[in-house]
């Protein structure tokens, strides 16, 4: 079942064309990885899919919602881990998660929040202000805010850059578990080894064009690894 549909999307910033007539679909229960070099348009595409940026033309449907017309409504059901944005400086970790729960109009989330503080091993830092947290812990906090309310889809922009290898492993396992239960993950990264390890399908993007989308297993039959596939397809 198609859960994300992107049809003929274009987006320009001034004279720079960030996305050129891109189309793709993502099915429910899969981990879709968008891979591409720096400046390829990955972040812009995620921003369009999550209703943060308006495309110049084209249609975007997420969970059957027209995200351009109803961005807030669509965001109620999705989790988003942005590439750079940090949580508000003067809230502590627990407060930020409660704040997210309240802005999502959710009740009885205290147990879910505690579960995530424990799962990502930063319970001891729950009273520290966001501005005083290390980058890694901030990323744990941003992961927690995207998953604690059990959303149907989670969009992740560069998911593991600041996490230590132990937490990375734990999180990757969790992603598999999450999609098995019916969740969907759309992640964009330029770390190809990670995409190869966790994704079911990958889409290749370069200079604003979605060049190809393909099942990872199929690709690995054709190429030595995802890196070789990437080099060949992007070139």
């Amino acid at each position: 079942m198609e859960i994300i549909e992107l049809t003929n999307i274009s987006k320009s910033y001034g004279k720079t064309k960030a996305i050129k007539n891109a189309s793709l679909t993502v099915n429910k229960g899969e981990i879709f990885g968008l891979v591409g070099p720096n400046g390829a348009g990955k972040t812009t595409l995620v921003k369009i899919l999550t209703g943060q940026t308006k495309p110049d033309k084209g249609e975007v449907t997420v969970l059957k919602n027209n995200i351009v017309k109803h961005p807030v409504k669509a965001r109620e059901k999705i989790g988003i881990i942005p590439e750079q944005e940090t949580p508000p400086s003067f809230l502590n970790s627990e407060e930020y998660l409660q704040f997210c729960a309240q802005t999502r109009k959710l009740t009885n989330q205290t147990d879910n929040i505690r579960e995530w503080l424990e799962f990502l091993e930063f319970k001891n830092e729950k009273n520290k202000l966001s501005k005083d947290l290390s980058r890694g812990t901030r990323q744990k906090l941003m992961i927690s805010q995207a998953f604690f309310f059990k959303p149907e889809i989670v969009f992740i922009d560069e998911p593991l850059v600041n996490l230590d290898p132990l937490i990375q492993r734990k999180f990757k396992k969790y992603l598999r578990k999450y999609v098995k239960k019916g969740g969907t993950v759309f992640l964009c990264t330029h770390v190809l080894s990670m995409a190869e390890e966790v994704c079911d399908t990958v889409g290749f993007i370069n200079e604003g064009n979605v060049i190809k989308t393909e099942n990872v297993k199929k690709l690995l039959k054709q190429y030595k690894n995802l890196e070789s596939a990437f080099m060949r397809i992007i070139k």
Partner: protein
Amino acid sequence: MLLKELLREEWRMHSTMFGNTNFILFSLVIFGLCALFALITPLFISSKSILSFSHYLFFALGISIGSFGLSGREVLNKRFGEISFIAYSSKILPVSVKQIFLNFALKDLMYYTFFFIIPFCTAFIISSAITTITITQASLMFITIPLTFFFGLSLSFLMTTIYSRSKIIIQLIIGCSIVYVFLNLGFFTQEIVYENMLPPLQLFFNPTMKMLIVNITLSAGLFLISTLLFNFEFKAKGKGHKTLFRASKKPSAIKAFMLKDFIDLHRSQGGFGKILFSFLIPILIIEVMMSFVLKIFSVSGEGLLILFSVIIGVTASTIYNWLAEFDNAKKYLNLPINPKKICLSKTGLSIILGIISGSGLLIISFLFSEASITSLGFSFIIFTSVFAITLSVLVYLTGLNPNTLLFDAKTFLKYMLTLAPIIVFFMLQAFSYSKINHLFLIPAPIILTTISIALFKKSMKKITIFE
């Protein structure tokens, strides 16, 4: 070298946002407004009173700007968010943070001189051709006004630096000063006291080389002591902060944002001291000075209270600037929140804090004004309606970015031109208060509040959901 780069950086930052011409136009707008002030006020008030008042005005501005002692290193990203500036480069460049800060302060001083002080003094030079203010007096202002601003800034810098280390000491000093002034009201209504209390004003009325040296040494000394005491480094507190957010049975995004904004204001360096030093104390200084100047011209206690309620109403809107300073709507694009709700919550909290602090100021003004208790109630209505219209105009023109967009000449001009008729109307009422019927003034707050609500609704339509 560092100063030059900081000046260049500040210029580029503003000109990128508003364009070179628009940014330069900002000082012309200030000049135009000052010229109006310099030309019109001598028709009603003696030149000596205007000149004294002008000095106290810049003293209050200095006090307000100098409150950066509260913010520690936060001051360096105070206005423009977490962007990489030279000010943040102490860890990657071979320059100490103290050195960067001193240059940063000097740069700010130069910008305020260029954008506010020079246009103000030039306006007085021009007005001296047709008013009672002499060209010598107007020329002398080029020395004494910057000194007054620097004195206010240094004094505030010292006070706020001490405040950030020990709140009790400053609370004691302020408390004792208020009680002392209140107990000696007779003494403080003498003109000679005001001339002698402000050293640059003393220099203005008695220009000698000795006085000039005393002034420079005094302000520079205060600034130097503050720099030595200033907390340059952000130190992450080892202790945690008790969780103030609790799970709610009726969750609401607006309530959540209001609580977050309250926590931001409370936990950011300086806490609520920011409101004290950037709003309450400067307004008190202006009020005390005005009450003195206007009493000479037989403005009634009631009239004075109306005037103060307008000043408090206009300036209370700066609380919105503080609340908008700590974050921007982009931080919440991962959540299902319409930026309109963010604006609504900031406006709501500004109203609550503005009314609490403004009412406190109004009560202090009432104690100084010798007005009747009925006038206090009436002034409260005027204060809230002026506060409402100022806040709604600010939100309409600048949305969630008041700290940057008000530097745009066009926006600033619109802001001033919209508010000027309202301020002038109430000023005229205040001057002739004893001669008019209360009923004449009653429709004004009702009209203002109605316009404020309509304007606020219109502002909400302007706020876009996309970045």
